[in-house]
């Protein structure tokens, strides 16, 4: 059955303010399809964001929504989830939000393994503030604060997440809708902290500064620097060099924090009663 998106969107907030060619709307639709498939009710979802283009999402979705300060979405979300573990907590943020100002919260959220779903809308640039370089801006790429090209190395969101202890890590491009749907759906099904590095193009700034062309031309560019994780063993090291794998990259089982904490409460209660 077709998904009725308006069951999840705040109609009065449409149309959204994202630029023509921006991929953020496609990510939101993938999120909605996953929620719809899982049968989550609007009232049991808290959606938390930081600041930036990605963080327009909470305004558009009809859940309990929280538009926090720049980088702090995971900190607020941690409080919500621990206070009401029965809520489904989805966190969205941009590459600046999660990898720069919120980097510390990101790595500790991965380490704690609280059952929250993070989606990083990664477009390699600060869109809302006018196209400045971000921690995922590609080396040598241009931005308003890197007029001669970006001299630094970018973070790989997924490698960061895996190294920090996230129990589900995946990546997908907005252009590959079925894969984005699958990665987000599986991340929502996962018990524990999940990270999805959702690539989205920014033709307004990144595309224009770097002469990458229109949104569809940008998608073609991105396609050149990825490979599907399923082909990992078929491709040579040479073929994979400098490229990013997409798909479900990492999934393990580890104690989830809320469950652990509940167990602690139960144990202490047992001890108290015994005394």
């Amino acid at each position, binding site marked *: 059955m077709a998904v009725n998106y308006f069951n999840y969107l705040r109609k009065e907030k449409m149309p959204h303010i994202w630029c023509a060619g921006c991929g953020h709307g496609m990510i939101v639709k993938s999120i909605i399809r996953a929620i719809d498939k899982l049968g989550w009710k609007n*009232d049991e979802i808290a959606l938390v964001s930081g600041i930036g283009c990605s963080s327009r999402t909470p305004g558009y979705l009809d859940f309990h929504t*929280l538009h*926090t300060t720049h980088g702090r979405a995971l900190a*607020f979300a941690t409080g919500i989830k621990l206070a009401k573990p*029965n809520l489904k907590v989805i966190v969205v943020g941009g590459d600046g939000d999660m990898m720069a100002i919120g980097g510390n*919260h990101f790595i500790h959220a991965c380490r704690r393994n609280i059952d929250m779903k993070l989606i990083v809308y990664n477009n390699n640039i600060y869109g809302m503030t006018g196209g400045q370089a971000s921690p995922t801006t590609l080396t040598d790429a241009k931005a308003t604060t890197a007029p001669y090209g970006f001299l630094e190395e970018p973070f790989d969101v997924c490698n960061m997440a895996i190294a920090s202890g996230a129990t589900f890590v995946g990546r997908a491009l907005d252009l590959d809708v079925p894969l984005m749907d699958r990665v987000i759906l599986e991340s929502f099904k996962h018990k524990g902290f999940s990270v999805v590095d959702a690539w989205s193009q920014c033709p307004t700034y990144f595309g224009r500064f770097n002469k990458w062309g229109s949104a569809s031309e940008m998608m073609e560019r991105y396609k050149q620097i990825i490979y599907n994780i399923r082909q990992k063993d078929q491709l040579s090291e040479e073929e994979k060099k400098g490229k990013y794998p997409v798909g479900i990259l990492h999934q393990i089982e580890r104690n989830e924090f809320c469950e652990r*904490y509940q167990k602690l*409460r139960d144990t202490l*209660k047992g001890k108290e009663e015994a005394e």
Partner: protein
Amino acid sequence: MQEKKNIKFLSGNEACGEGAIVAGCRFFGGYPISPSSEIAEFMSKRLPLVGGTFIQMEDEIASIGAILGASLAGVKSMTATSGPGLSLMQENIGFGAMAEIPTVIVDVMRGGPSTGNPTGPSQSDVMAIRWGTHGDYPAVALCPESVNEVFLLTIEAFNIAEFLRTPVVLAMDEITAHMREKVELLKESDVKIVNRKKPEKMPYLPYEYGEDLIPPLPGYGEGFRFHVTGLNHDKTGFPTNKSELMEEGNRRIMEKLDKNKDKVIKHEEFMTEDCDILVVAYGSSARAAKRAVRTAREKGIKAGLFRPITLYPLSEKALQKAAGKAKKVIVPEMNLGQYILIVERVIGHGFPIIGINQVDGEPISPSKILSKIEE
């Protein structure tokens, strides 16, 4: 049958934890910092026993984020820190004020600026508490002078936060935090507990207010879906850049405190009825001041003490009245002259207002205050 009083010999930090539990606090997010860490230690031990949650966050920015999130989810929350941590929290203290989220921030003051003096008493945050975050916001801060008062004011801090729907600071210092003395632990049934007003009907607009200017607040997941942002917003909770709505919103969060301040303000007066010399002191400095005033009276000098218990808002009328006949006002504080600026604004005309300022990590002694009284 009258129950026996539950008198304990506790430190201020322990009493703060006890008060928080009685007030209904069931979430604590914090980061260790002297001289406040014993509060986090207490909460980590106690909260899981009462169905609550403790979490040690990665820093103070995350701590305040977590407690604001927990509060939005409908659970009373608290953090505890000291100056350097307070500086880091300022960002989201502003968020709490703007989005009107009740929570309690305990600031056990230490010397500054920067790392300053972690182990000595200080009162150097009283202006940071008032003006620390950017923008205009309704600052509420309580300042206890004894361990027993720490217990009571912690409960009061929660009550005010819940009533006004705003973050409240409990400003302690190393002495009120680490000093041990008698405290009467009251049960929940023996104290007034205020819980936030909840909406009664759908549709719910999160920033629609009545006469008291305080909008009701449900918890996430309780059937009232709503949006919260730190941007200027209208009654619906969504961002607005309409001039008149921005003006209205910014003014209302200030006016809700002003309108309800009589329900919040607390102060103590000691021998002020006929005083020639008025000492204005708060926190542990007020105890030195009280001793100095007593000694002065024994010597026939008409001294009195005015102690603001709510630093913000201050009972301005009462202070003006207490200073009415005074020829001299003395303001001792463990900083280089912060609260004196407020005293000057409120009563500052016609007579000298003298500060006693000390930033050496030692408390101000009664004899130092006495000699200024005698001067």
